[in-house]
């Protein structure tokens, strides 16, 4: 008997914990509120099943605990009941699956007006690159990366010249404008993850992966690395600042482009050679 009561309290405790928990998700700050909705839906359906199954179990424990004179029912199968249960479950599962697939379809199809951002990850840090006037990012190679070319942009690619380089781990985004995050890693797996935006994707060396979202709350957010990447994994943080249009434009103006950098580099080099000649 005590067992039944304790199990009942466990179930009750779980439900109460869920209702009163101070630990729950942060407010969503992107267009992926739909993910929260699917979670909530799954919670209701799944939680309902969990509570129902466990309460039924507790009921059985109370009702049918051992008595010398009782004989259990002998009924190997009940075709009808099994069929009903199978089909209800199938329907429930399908109802959970369908919204999931619909939102996944949105997740992998990026809107046309999304701004592409190259997120480059290494052990253990981030840096970012935005397309310049032409709206396109230049191609890259890991082997091109050096002090003069921190992103490894292919020098013969015309699209790369005006790329805006953000060589810090904080990136600014424009509010209400979709961004396509292009993830790239130069060494091991990483994952650019902002809990408030919900979405995440691994950065895999050797290929470029992507996902998109549309920030819809201004503010500052912390970027976490969500794929184990070596001993520095837990300390691999970055930042995102979501700004309104005007602030964002101002910030963008201050950033350096690749051609700026090359020009500066050239100046520096000529200066050095002049110095050496003197």
């Amino acid at each position, binding site marked *: 008997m005590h067992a039944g009561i304790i199990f009942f309290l466990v179930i009750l405790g779980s439900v109460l914990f869920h209702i009163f928990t101070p630990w729950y998700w942060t407010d969503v700050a992107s267009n992926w509120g739909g993910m929260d909705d699917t979670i909530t839906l799954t919670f209701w359906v799944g939680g309902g099943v969990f509570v129902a199954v466990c309460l039924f179990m507790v009921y059985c424990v109370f009702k049918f*605990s051992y008595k010398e004179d009782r004989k259990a029912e002998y009924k190997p199968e009940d075709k009808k009941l099994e069929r009903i249960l199978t089909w209800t*479950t199938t329907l429930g599962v399908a109802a959970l699956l369908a919204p999931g697939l619909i939102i996944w379809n949105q997740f992998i199809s990026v809107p046309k007006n999304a701004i592409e951002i190259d997120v480059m990850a290494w052990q253990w840090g981030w840096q970012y690159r935005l397309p310049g006037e032409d709206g396109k990012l230049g191609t890259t190679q890991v082997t091109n990366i050096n002090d003069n070319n921190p992103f490894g942009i292919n020098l013969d690619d015309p699209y790369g010249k005006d790329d805006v380089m953000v060589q810090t781990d904080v990136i600014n985004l424009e509010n209400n404008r979709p961004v396509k995050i292009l993830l790239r890693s130069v060494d091991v797996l990483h994952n650019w993850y902002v809990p408030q935006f919900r979405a995440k994707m691994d950065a895999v060396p*050797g290929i470029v992966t992507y996902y998109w979202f549309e920030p819809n709350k201004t503010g500052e957010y912390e970027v976490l690395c969500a794929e184990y990447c070596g001993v520095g994994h837990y300390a691999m943080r970055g930042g995102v600042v979501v700004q309104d249009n005007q602030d964002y434009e101002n910030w963008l103006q201050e950033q350096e482009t690749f051609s700026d950098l090359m020009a500066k580099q050239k100046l520096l080099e000529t200066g050095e050679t002049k110095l050496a000649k003197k």
Partner: protein
Amino acid sequence: MSEDYNDNKTIQAQSSETISGSGSGVSPDIDYVRPAEIPEQDLYHGHSFITKWVFCQDAKVIGVQYFLLATFTGIIGLILSWLMRLQLGFPELASFMTAEHYYQFVTMHGMIMVVYFLTALFLGGFGNFLIPLMVGARDMVFPYLNMVSFWMFFIAVGVLLASFFVPGGPTGSGWTLYPPQAILEGTPGSGMGIMLMCISLILFVAGFTMGGLNYLITVLQARTRGMTLMRMPLTVWGIFTATVLAMLAFPALLVGALMMSLDNILGTSFFMPTILKAGEVLEYGGGSPILFQHLFWFFGHPEVYIVALPAFGIISDLISVHARKNIFGYRMMVWAIVGIGALSFFVWAHHMYVSGMNPWFGFFFATTTLIIAVPTAMKVYNWILTLWRGNIRLNTVMLWCLGFIVTFVNGGITGIFLGNVTVDVPLSDTYFVIAHFHMVMGIAPLMVIMGAVYHWFPLVAGRFLDEKLGKWHFWLTFLGAYSIYFPMHYLGFIGVPRRYFEMYDSPYMTSAVGMNEFISMAAFIVGAAQFILIYNIIRALKIGKPSGHNPWKACSLEWLTPSVPPEHGNWGERLPVVHRWAYDYSVPGAKEDFITQTTPPSDVANTEVEKT
């Protein structure tokens, strides 16, 4: 067919015994079971201590050996988890621990628990002990190979543990061993550690293959007379299907481990693209890290079911015996096990939704994954429907079963979160995943193991384990484990990523500190509670209550051996003949509330027993 094992006398003896128990005036041919088609197995009987207890060919002894060694590695895994929880809950007390240590402990804990503890325990331990007894065989079909299998496992464990003592320590790349980080500087144990891990896994796979062939052929080809597949206890079904999965899934792990070793030693680029490290381009290029993930999870997902299916099977038997009721919907249960097993080969990439694989795979794998939820749910329904109108003995074994149902349903439901591709995106790589898989393939199978230990200990030792200690053990473990993993899901909702050595002080993560302290406390208690079992076993071996024959009044064959504990060869002079399934409990009209599998139909002609 051959005369290898031919012992004509025994065959004659068996063939002549086609009609048994033809008394009581009933027509004798309802008891007819066709004669033996397999000759009697000739066994090698050990004489010395070494051949009897060390290099022993008796499956039961090998099972116990597997059990003990797996438990030993499991305790190491447990201690590692304590260290991890110490760091997460009370970092100020764990100042001796660096991030390197932490990641090494995480990795070794994961690998030990999944492969060297759970897999070895369920298939090697319970499989060896129970399969021959439950299908009515004298032993496994290839006893010598079976012995070699255990000793390969022994060497594999040795190699694994040796990695603690090599320069650089064991690998710290997470139990998934993802390249490139697994073999690059910056990850602990990227030299010798990962090498030894790969070697150990390859040895484990080789050893397991030998054992697995034994289990499969014993079930398929060495059943006793009257034992059809559809009369086997679900325990055998679970272990059998899990073994099939293992035979087909371990190859992928073997190939992955081999290729990664080559990347590591020879500098090939199977999984290694061009890599820039510390300003230098390494001599790799063109490889694909995602390929390893596919290989790993092609093994890894069936591996989940390699652990889960034996647990499903065993729990069905335990519930049925202790609820004094037949398992509800036996055929559904069998087909669910087989179906889950088959489907498990088509769902692997649901572990990789955010890995950067081809995004279209999301649709395929979400669908196949959620299809698996249906047979799994059916199994849950059938377990609780078995309790319904039963006559439930609320002993320790039943408590573990109930604990299993609660934790498994909980973990199964969160599995639907993670299998459904969109829901997975915010939750993957967070503590939600940790909580989910610990609940569903850590705690739930552990409940089954414990229940099985309390259930079958009388068969192994001829004595009962102490009920009172058992109940303490159960409640501490169940309540403790539940309060570890249930709240942990909510850390995942907050967005706390897994494999973080320290949380730092992100505003929304500070609230996790308190919970982490609580979880760590619970983890210490649960871990310590396991030593109650060890004490209980030692105590029972000395002063436990003798159990006698068939103490639980079970129907299945393993309790019907002429001697308890069973001797080498299991069945004495004559193999048992089976007439029914293993679940004839509480048959209306029967004298007792159980009819054993060997009871001939003529003995129970006046009852309403169903034909199986």
